[in-house]
């Protein structure tokens, strides 16, 4: 690839954002949509500036609860994935349960969590956790469960215990799967937090959007949307970068 092409590729996503914003602005102006229905891009930008203080405060709340739920998801996901991935029996026993659990809309848990923990940060953290641990479990377990049988023979003949095989081969082998799942999990965690905040909190971007919506301040609602997606994108990129650094050997074809 030439230098010019590289630059084009790097600029492309920014250009896409600019184009989208322009279409948005143009459409709202062209059809003269009232701002309490669908605010223009410029009105949303103005709301972002005007309410920078409260938005910042609520974003911080959303960010830290998301990260807390995500951290919990990583710990539990890694542990559970390791346990069920390391045993064929447990894998078969637990997998249908996990799939069934994953099919439950996580928003359905929020009322339960509110009864147990009251409104506030805890339901948000737990909703983020519940929604994001599943892809981690599945990826880690799959990485472990798909070990080449011949490689296992090579090690078993040397007297390797199950734990040796898992630690020397299984775990490093499942790391690319693990890091790939982190990217999915972090965006899901944001979904969980915001969903919980909209119904059971008086802090966070979800709450901010909810209360702004009830006052018909749509430009502020849209500002909230943009902040959430910006945070999610930044975290996604962060974990994509981490993935690249930690498991370069698995991405050798893409250099």
């Amino acid at each position: 690839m030439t230098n010019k092409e590289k630059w084009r590729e790097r600029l492309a996503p920014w250009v896409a954002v600019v184009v989208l914003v322009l279409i948005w602005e143009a459409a709202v102006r062209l059809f003269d949509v009232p701002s309490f229905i669908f605010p223009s891009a410029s009105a949303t930008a103005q709301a972002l500036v005007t309410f920078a203080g409260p938005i910042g405060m609520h974003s911080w709340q959303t960010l830290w609860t998301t990260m807390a739920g995500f951290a919990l998801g990583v710990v539990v996901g890694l542990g559970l994935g390791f346990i069920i991935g390391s045993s064929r029996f447990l894998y078969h026993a637990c997998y249908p349960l996990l799939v069934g659990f994953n099919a439950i809309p996580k928003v359905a848990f929020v009322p339960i969590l509110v009864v147990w923990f009251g409104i506030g940060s805890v339901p948000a953290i737990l909703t983020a956790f519940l929604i994001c641990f599943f892809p981690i479990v599945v990826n880690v377990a799959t990485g472990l469960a798909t070990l080449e049988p011949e490689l296992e023979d090579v090690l078993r003949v040397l007297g390797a215990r199950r734990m040796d095989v898992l630690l020397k081969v299984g775990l490093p082998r499942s790391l690319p799967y693990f890091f790939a799942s982190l990217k999915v999990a972090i965006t899901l965690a944001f979904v969980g937090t915001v969903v919980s905040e909209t119904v059971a909190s008086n802090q966070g971007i979800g709450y901010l959007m909810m209360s702004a919506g009830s006052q018909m301040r749509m430009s502020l609602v849209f500002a909230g949307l943009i902040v959430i997606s910006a945070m999610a994108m930044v975290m996604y990129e962060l974990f994509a970068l981490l993935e690249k650094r930690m498991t370069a050997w698995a991405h050798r074809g893409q250099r």
Partner: protein
Amino acid sequence: MAFVDFDRVSLAYDDSGNAIEDITLKIEEGEFVAFVGPSGCGKSTFMKLCTGLHGPTGGQVRVDDEPVGGPLKISGMAFQNANLLPWRTTLDNVLLPLEIVKPYRHEFRRRREEFVGWARDLLRTVGLEGYEDQYPWQLSGGMQQRASICRALIHRPRLLMLDEPFAALDAFTREELWCVLRDLWEAQRFTVVLVTHDLREAAFLADTVYVMSRRPGRIIERRQIDLPRPRELATTYEAPFIELVQALRAQIGEIRSA
């Protein structure tokens, strides 16, 4: 007493019948034997029995005068697929068995320098000097297979099991590796069990070639290869060698048409 002693050994994995049946043979220490036969004849099953990865359902397997009752760590294995770990350098891949097998696993930290020396020596003898710090995916298929053989030999096993190790390589690389294996064996004289589809490979490398039947695998022919050693690759283009391979070929043909 033979080093490996199979006495009327059979193995059935499940109710579908024996994978191998009634195998009786003796392999001397330092002998190079090859198993040839049609696909699915239980050659790999033989390897599992020999290394103790699987117990027989009939008969007895003895290695080094002891009944085999579990994985035999005096054996090293290499397969058609090199199966190197992509996150480890070539050197670290070769060192892997020493991190696992007793007694080396407990000495690994303390004697690491020494072990690295072993690995480097071994890699040099197979022609991988200078590639120690490369990752497997930076090596060609033939080089990966060389490293895989080094990994099988690093803990100085007395029994080397090779399951079609050269089957996935191109013809020239394969012949190169025959010579690498020949030289390693001439130098260290471990016992080798080579499972292969390639009759020329079997005849060139082995002292004894066993021909196996279709499933259930039985041994239907034991053929001593009396070509003088050390054998040169040129031998394989001379009349006695070609006749030998043709005779083996005819036998396999008979099994297939039967």
